C-alpha cells in the first residue's frame, strides 16, 4: 500500500465490487478504506470532535460546517458565510471535481464537518472526501439487490450525521450507520420489505439521539411511515404510520381496506423545532396515485404536514394540503421554519402549485397563494384551503390539468434567506392530460391506476426560480430558465442564491433582485441542491451535477 490512494486504486476497488454481477455477491455491505491517506496528506484536524445534538442545534455557531440535509434544523438552506458575495461572485472558479463513477441521477446534498465532506451517490454509495481537494478518504457501497424496482431511479439524497456516525437509508429499505472515519458499518437494520415496494431515498434527520427517516413507495401501494432509530444501536424507538389503522384517528378517511395499501410515503427530509420539540415531516400521495376510485375519503395523512413529538412520534397536529389526491401531488417538499417578529411560522412551496404558510405551534393555515400555473382549484374553504374542482378529476378519456403530474415543484430543495426575507423555490409551469388506467393491486408491483400525457394544446413547459415573499405570498422576482430544472436552491449571507439548470449550468444570482451574476457549465444536468462550507478560512459552494460533485471558490 502506497502512501495515498490514486484513481487506479479507486477504479480497481470499484470494479471488484461489481465483478461477477451484483446478484452474485453476498448481500453483505462492502466498503473501501484508503489506508494511509489520513496520516500522510490530511492536515485538517478532523480530531475526535463528535457531532453532538448540541452542535446540530447551534449549527449557526459553526458556519464553516453543513451539518444536516438543509444545513440546519430550520430547513432554510441558508449559509451564514459571506466571503463569497455579490461583489466577488463573478470571479468564482472551480476548485475540484469528484467523479462518483455511478450512473443515473445524482440528488445528494453533501454534509461537511471539520474539513471532511460526506455525500452519497446512486445505488446507495456513500463517500467521504477531503473537502479542500475532493480526494477520497473512504467509500462505502451497499450491496443493492438486483430485483429492486424503485419508481424514480436508484437515487439517494444524502446522509445525516450524529456522534461518530453517518446514517444512510437504502433502496432496499435498510437504515445503516457508518463510522465517520472509515465508512465501516456500525449497524444495519431492515425497516421494511423492499419486495413489497418499500425503499429509502431520503436523507435522514438526526434529532437528539434519534435517526428520523421516512419511507418511499407511493407507487407500490405501501403503507407509509416515519421511523426513529436509536443512533447508537439501531433499535427502533418509534414509528408513525402515515395511514392510520383501525381505531386510529383518520382511519375513517379511507374506504374499506384501501388504507392497507394507502401509500402516503414520507420521502423527503423534514425539519425540527427545539422550542416545541416537534419534528415537521411532510408526506406524499395516496396510492394508487391518480385514481381515487376505491379509496373514497380525504385519505389522511397523505399529502400532509405532520407535527410529531420528537421523543414519542405522537402526532401533535397535521395539515393536509391536497385531500383525496388524484394527481400525484406529493406534499413532500421541505417545510421551512420561519420566524417573523413574534410569528412562528412554517412554510411550504407545495407540488400542487400553492405556497402555504402555517402557524407551526398549531398547524393553523395563515395563507395559501398560487405561485405557478394552476387550474385544479378556483375556490377556498372556510379555513382558506384551496378546494379541488370536481372536473379536475382524471377520467378514462383524460383531460388537461395544471400543474401536471410532476407538479409546480417536486423534491427540489427550497431556500429562505433571513437577509431578504424571501423564500426561493424552483418552479415549473406544465399541464398534463390525466387519464385513469384501472389496475389491480399486486404486492411489489407498480400501482399507479393512471397515466399522464403531455397535453397537445398545452404551452411549452417553462421552468423558473421564484422568490416568494412569505408575508404576502407575492412573487418578488422570477428568473426564467431555458427549460425546467430539477435543481434545488441555496441562499447565503453573501446576498446570493445559487441554483443549477437542466443544461448543466451552476448559477449565482443576486438574492434581492434575481439578477444572474456568474455561471459555470458543469456538463451534466442538475438534480441536486447546492450547499456551502469553509475550510482553512476559505468558503466553498458545492453541488452535484451529472455524475460528479463540484466545489467552487474564489481564486
Amino acid at each position, binding site marked *: 500500500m502506497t502512501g495515498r490512494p490514486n484513481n487506479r486504486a479507486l477504479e480497481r476497488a470499484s470494479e471488484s465490487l461489481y465483478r461477477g*454481477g451484483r*446478484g452474485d455477491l453476498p448481500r453483505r455491505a462492502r466498503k473501501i478504506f484508503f489506508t494511509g491517506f489520513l496520516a500522510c496528506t490530511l492536515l485538517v484536524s478532523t480530531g475526535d470532535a463528535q457531532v453532538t445534538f448540541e452542535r446540530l442545534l447551534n449549527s449557526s455557531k459553526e458556519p464553516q460546517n453543513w451539518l444536516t440535509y438543509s444545513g440546519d434544523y430550520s430547513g432554510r438552506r441558508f449559509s451564514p458565510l459571506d466571503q463569497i458575495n455579490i461583489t466577488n461572485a463573478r470571479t468564482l472558479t472551480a476548485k475540484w471535481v469528484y467523479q462518483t463513477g455511478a450512473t*443515473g441521477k445524482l*440528488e445528494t446534498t453533501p454534509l461537511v464537518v471539520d474539513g471532511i465532506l460526506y455525500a452519497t451517490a446512486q445505488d446507495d454509495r456513500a463517500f467521504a472526501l477531503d473537502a479542500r481537494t475532493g480526494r477520497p478518504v473512504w467509500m462505502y457501497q451497499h450491496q443493492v439487490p*438486483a*430485483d*429492486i*424496482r*424503485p*419508481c*424514480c*431511479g*436508484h*437515487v439517494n439524497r444524502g446522509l445525516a450525521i450524529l456522534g461518530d456516525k453517518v446514517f444512510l437509508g437504502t433502496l432496499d429499505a435498510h437504515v445503516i450507520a457508518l463510522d465517520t472515519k472509515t465508512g465501516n458499518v456500525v449497524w444495519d437494520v431492515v425497516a421494511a420489505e423492499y419486495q413489497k415496494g418499500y425503499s429509502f*431515498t431520503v436523507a435522514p434527520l438526526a434529532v437528539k439521539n434519534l435517526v428520523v427517516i421516512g419511507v*418511499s413507495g407511493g*407507487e*407500490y401501494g405501501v403503507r407509509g411511515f416515519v421511523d426513529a432509530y436509536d443512533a447508537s444501536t439501531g433499535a427502533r424507538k418509534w414509528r408513525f404510520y402515515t395511514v392510520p389503522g383501525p381505531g386510529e384517528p383518520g382511519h375513517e378517511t379511507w374506504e374499506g381496506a384501501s388504507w392497507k395499501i394507502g401509500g402516503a*410515503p414520507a420521502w423527503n427530509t423534514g425539519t425540527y423545532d427545539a422550542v416545541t420539540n416537534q419534528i415537521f415531516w411532510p408526506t406524499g*400521495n395516496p396510492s394508487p*396515485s391518480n385514481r381515487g376510485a376505491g379509496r373514497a375519503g380525504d385519505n389522511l395523512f397523505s399529502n400532509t404536514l405532520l407535527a410529531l413529538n420528537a421523543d414519542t412520534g405522537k402526532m401533535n397536529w397535521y395539515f393536509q394540503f391536497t385531500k383525496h389526491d388524484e394527481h*400525484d401531488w*406529493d406534499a*413532500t417538499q421541505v417545510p421551512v421554519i420561519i420566524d417573523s417578529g413574534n410569528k412562528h411560522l412554517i412554510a411550504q412551496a407545495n407540488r400542487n402549485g400553492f405556497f402555504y404558510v402555517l402557524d407551526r405551534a398549531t398547524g393553523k393555515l395563515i395563507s395559501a397563494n398560487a405561485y405557478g400555473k394552476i387550474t385544479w382549484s378556483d375556490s377556498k374553504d372556510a379555513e382558506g384551503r384551496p378546494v379541488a374542482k370536481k372536473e379536475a378529476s382524471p377520467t378514462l378519456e*383524460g383531460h388537461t390539468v395544471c400543474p401536471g*403530474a*410532476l407538479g409546480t415543484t417536486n*423534491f427540489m430543495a427550497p431556500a429562505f434567506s433571513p437577509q431578504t426575507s424571501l423564500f426561493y423555490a424552483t418552479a415549473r409551469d*406544465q*399541464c398534463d392530460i390525466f*387519464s385513469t*388506467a*384501472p389496475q*389491480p393491486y399486486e404486492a411489489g*408491483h*407498480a400501482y*399507479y391506476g*393512471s*397515466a399522464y*400525457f*403531455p397535453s397537445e394544446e*398545452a*404551452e*411549452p*413547459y417553462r421552468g423558473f426560480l421564484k422568490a416568494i415573499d412569505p408575508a404576502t405570498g407575492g412573487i418578488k422576482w422570477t428568473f426564467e*430558465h*431555458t*427549460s*425546467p430544472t*430539477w435543481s434545488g436552491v441555496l441562499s447565503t449571507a453573501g446576498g446570493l442564491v445559487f441554483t443549477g*439548470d*437542466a*443544461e*448543466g*449550468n451552476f*448559477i449565482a444570482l443576486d438574492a434581492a433582485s434575481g439578477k*444572474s451574476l456568474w*455561471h459555470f*457549465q458543469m456538463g451534466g444536468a442538475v*438534480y441536486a441542491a447546492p450547499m456551502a462550507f469553509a475550510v482553512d478560512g476559505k468558503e466553498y459552494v458545492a453541488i452535484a451535477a451529472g455524475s460528479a460533485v463540484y466545489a467552487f471558490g474564489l481564486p
Partner: protein
Amino acid sequence: MSETTTGRTPVRQSSGKTALPALRVALLILALVTFLAADDRNPFANNPKAAKAGESEFRINCALCHGLGAHGGGRGPDLTRAQKKHVHSDAEMFQVISNGIPGTVMPANGTNGQGVGMTDEEIWQIITYIRSVEVKAPAHAIGNAAHGKELFYGDANCSLCHMVEGKGGRVGPELTGVGGSRTQEAIIDSVRNPSRRLAWGLTESTKEFPQEYETITVITAEGKQIKGIALNEDNFSVQMMDSSENIYLLEKDKLRSFKKSRESLMPIYKPDVLSDKDLDDVVAYLISVGAK
C-alpha cells in the same frame, strides 16, 4: 410518479445450488433451455383478460409515445400496423420492450420516465394487448413513392431543408427514418401545420427530435440580424443555424436582442401549394424509405 422521472431496468437472475459439478452444469443447461423456451412463448396469447390488463399497462408505460389505442403518437410508431419494423414474433417484441431499441428513442423497460418497470408477466400482457388491436392488412403506402421522391427532391422543395439517406439540406430534421416511426397522419399534419408539433410539451429527456427546431432571431452587438433554428440553448448561450446552413455560437449577454419563437421556419404547405395527392406521394416515398 412520485419522486422524479426515470427508473431502471430490473435484472433477471436465476440461481441453483448443488454439490456435483456435472449435475450443476446439467441443471444449468436445463434451466437455460426452460428459461429460453419460457421467453419464446406468450403465456397469454389470445387471452382477452390478459389483453385487458395489458391495455392498462400500455396506457401507463407505452401510450406517451405510441398513443392511446396504440395508434402512434408524435414519436412512437403506430403499433396497430401488422408489419413492424423491428419485431415480428412475440419473443422479439418481448426483447424490444425489455431492452429498448438502440439508436432510437425506444427505451428499455422502466427507463422512460413512465411507469416503474414491468414484470415479465406484465410485458406479455402488453404484447397480448398489441396483438389484439393489430389491423391484419399489411401497411401499404397510399401514394406513388417514385413520384413522391421526384417531388421531395424537386418541385416540393423538401430537400432544400431536409435530408433523406444522406442527400438534402440541413436546416430541418433528417427524415430517413420518419416513415417507419410516424403515422401517415402525423407526417401529413407536420407538412400542413409545421408549427403545431413544436408546441408539443414533451418531457425534457425524450423530445421528439434532439432539437426542437425553434426559430431564433438575434441581433448581434455589431447590429447584424441572424434568423435560424436553435441547435441547442442554455441560459447563457445559443448554438444556431441559419437558412444558409451557417452555424453561429453565441453568448446571449453579448447580443443586442434575442427572440425565440415556436413558429416553425418551415413554410406551411397548403393544398394549393402541394395537393393532397402529391402529399400522399411524398408520404409514400418517406414510408418506402423509412420502413426498410
